């Protein structure tokens, strides 16, 4: 049994911190771990990635082969797309949708998200704003990790324990903010998966999940059912588009009214 994932982001976005949490959580759970990462010149605002490989057997390669990763976890949407060639055809993408524009030729954002939202197994969320709500904008990476957590072969408690270990030295406020950020991300991911299980089209889910201000508690079942009804209904596509176009984050309990 093995599980390969790629972490992606831009230098300074905390990609290697996510890797640290995953490594230590997996090791504590008895997995063999290999994790390669990028240091040096690329860290100056360039694309940064890490390959994390978990297995019950010894792990051979430090790099992931094309078409073999189960998951890409990204802190930035363009970076999420950069590593999709490593994904299996049924692989999943978890990403923040807020672009970090530090290059002159950053692609048209609408076109970028359209390509992204075409991914068959996507968890898209606004980790940047959700982290602010959690108490520290720096926890953007932790929100994304939380959103990836239901897809990982690791228990929530093991990941949270390593988050605590990582941030312990920064004091209780930062630890609590990160735990909150993690749970917010996880709630978003559970919401997305519930809608997918109910047959809601992927692009509608992505448009909605990118605009919801998730809380640390999972979205309540009756609210979930209402969203499924709305998005699978005749006005579902229009409602998702409207919510997405409005750009504001809204509470999951505020379902769009029919126009």
């Amino acid at each position: 049994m093995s599980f390969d994932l790629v972490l992606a982001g831009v230098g300074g976005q905390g990609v290697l911190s996510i890797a640290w949490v995953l490594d230590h959580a997996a090791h504590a759970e008895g997995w063999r771990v290999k994790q390669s990462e990028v240091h040096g010149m690329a860290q100056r605002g360039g694309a940064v990635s890490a390959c994390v490989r978990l297995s019950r057997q010894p792990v051979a390669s430090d790099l992931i082969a094309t078409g073999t990763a189960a998951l890409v976890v990204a802190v930035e949407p363009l970076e999420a797309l950069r590593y999709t060639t490593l994904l299996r055809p049924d692989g999943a993408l978890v990403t923040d949708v807020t672009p970090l524009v530090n290059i002159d030729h950053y692609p048209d954002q609408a076109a970028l998200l359209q390509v992204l939202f075409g991914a068959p197994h996507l968890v898209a969320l606004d980790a940047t704003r959700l982290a602010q709500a959690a108490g520290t904008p720096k926890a953007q990476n932790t929100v994304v990790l939380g959103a990836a957590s239901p897809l990982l072969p690791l228990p929530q408690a093991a990941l949270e324990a390593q988050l605590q270990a990582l941030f312990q030295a920064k004091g209780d406020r930062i630890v609590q903010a990160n735990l909150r950020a993690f749970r917010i991300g996880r709630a978003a991911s559970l919401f997305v998966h519930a809608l997918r299980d109910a047959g809601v089209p992927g692009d509608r889910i992505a448009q909605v999940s990118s605009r919801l201000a998730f809380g640390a508690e999972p979205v309540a079942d009756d609210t979930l059912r209402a969203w499924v009804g709305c998005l699978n209904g005749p006005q579902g596509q229009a409602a998702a588009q409207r919510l997405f176009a409005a750009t504001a984050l809204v509470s999951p309990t505020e379902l769009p009214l029919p126009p």
Partner: protein
Amino acid sequence: MDMPADPATLADEQILLGDEAVARGAVDAGISAAYAYPGTPSTEIFQTIQDQARERGLPIRGLWSSNEKVALEEGAGVSYAGRRALVSMKHVGLNVAADPFMNLGVSGAHGGLVLVVADDPSMHSSQNEQDSRFFADFAMVPCLEPGDQQQCYDFTREAFELSERLQTPVMLRLVTRLAHSRAAVRPAPRREPGPPCWVPDPDRFTLVPAHARRAYAALVDKQPALRAWSEAHAVNRLQISGQGRPGILVSGIGWNYLVEALGEPRLAGFNVLRIGAYPLPVDRIRQLLDASSEVTVVEEGYPFIERQVAALGLLREPRIVGRLTGALPRMGELGPDAIKRCFGVPVAAALQLPGLAQVLAPRPPRLCDKCPHTDAYIALHEAIAEGAGDVRVMGDIGCYSLGALEPLRAIHSCLCMGASIGMAIGAAHAGMSPALCVIGDGTFTHSGMAPLLDAVRDNTNIKVFILDNAIVAMTGGQPAQASDEQLVELVAGLGVPRDRIRLVEPTHHKNAQTVAVIREELAHVGLSVIIARRACVTYAREIKALRRGAAA
């Protein structure tokens, strides 16, 4: 099998980078000192040694040395005094240290002396992908090439034993994907360092011709013992699956990709020789060739083994293929996909996203927001814009090398550490005016002082810009050897007249003043040094801490 790991094992294990595992291995081997010059992918080795010494309260001396040559010479001194030293650098750093390295092979070591060199195939953070195994071979010293993080630890410890047993420096060769990859490592108990002691007969350390000839003869005589060590080494493992089967000769991290790409069952159909210790185990290679229909050489870096084993294709051996013949890519790092293609294993189908190619813009590294280098380049650009036509600026190595890229395009050469000043002197001698160069404070003390001394003696008409950001930023914020007033004194001490040492503060706000100063110096015929002094924004906290430390 899905077996829970033994908790006792887990507690002993630590998840370490290859670099960190080397550092732990050196500390546990009982080093008394460590020296390094920062350079990706080797930097974390010395950092970890410093951390370990502090956390474990160990009396390990050492420095971020002024450059790699000095680092290796400091290590040689420790070895000469009978104690163990680890010296670490990146591959191109060994070019700087080549002089002591080649001669240390001849003089031999006394206390264990291990040189870790981290190669950078694919040039993730380097200007070439040279393979340090050639240097080990050139100097006739043994080389260990770990393939995983545990071997990084174990081989480092073994390298010290070998160094003392055969009285030779030992090279440990890493590559980026090992240096910067993590896995669980189990350390062993630490060996206490021994007391310092001089070697009884110092002749072999005094390489005047009469002694050098004897020492070189001793080095040549040592080779059979090194070969015997390599032939017997467990890492150089030969598995013959059957006469006439295809063979694979694989070294270092290449093994990992091979297992990943082919899988153990398929690999069992090949004759396989793994290599992790050099000089090459020639007898075992002979056995592999004799047993195999053809041999594919899988090695990370240059085709070092392939070139020797195939004797450039001159001998009538079984077909030997690899990076030289095009069976594997000649350039860049290997990976599981390259191995799959080489052995005809299909590369797995991947997720296809419609429209991906249209939006997938590259994101190269860039200077940070508010970086002082950007303002320095903008001012320089403005000052020379009005001048005569086609002006080229000789650049150097550091974050400011990124000034070569769009949108700044501010420097027009980047060769090796410290080259900018010498190249500007050459350009001036060739008749170019103005002849300009840009060098950082860290690179200046690494290897920029000697060429500046040349310019002083010659009063060459060059304009030297020293970008003093008070730290070695590119590699993660190591202390600069001289910045602020110390740097001014250093430049003056080399003989640059005080009135030709100009200080500017590269900010948007003071751009006009900076441009004016540059223009004044462009108008002066002769050597000028313009120091653009503004602390790095990214490592502001580290700089503050360093200044506090210096003041205390």
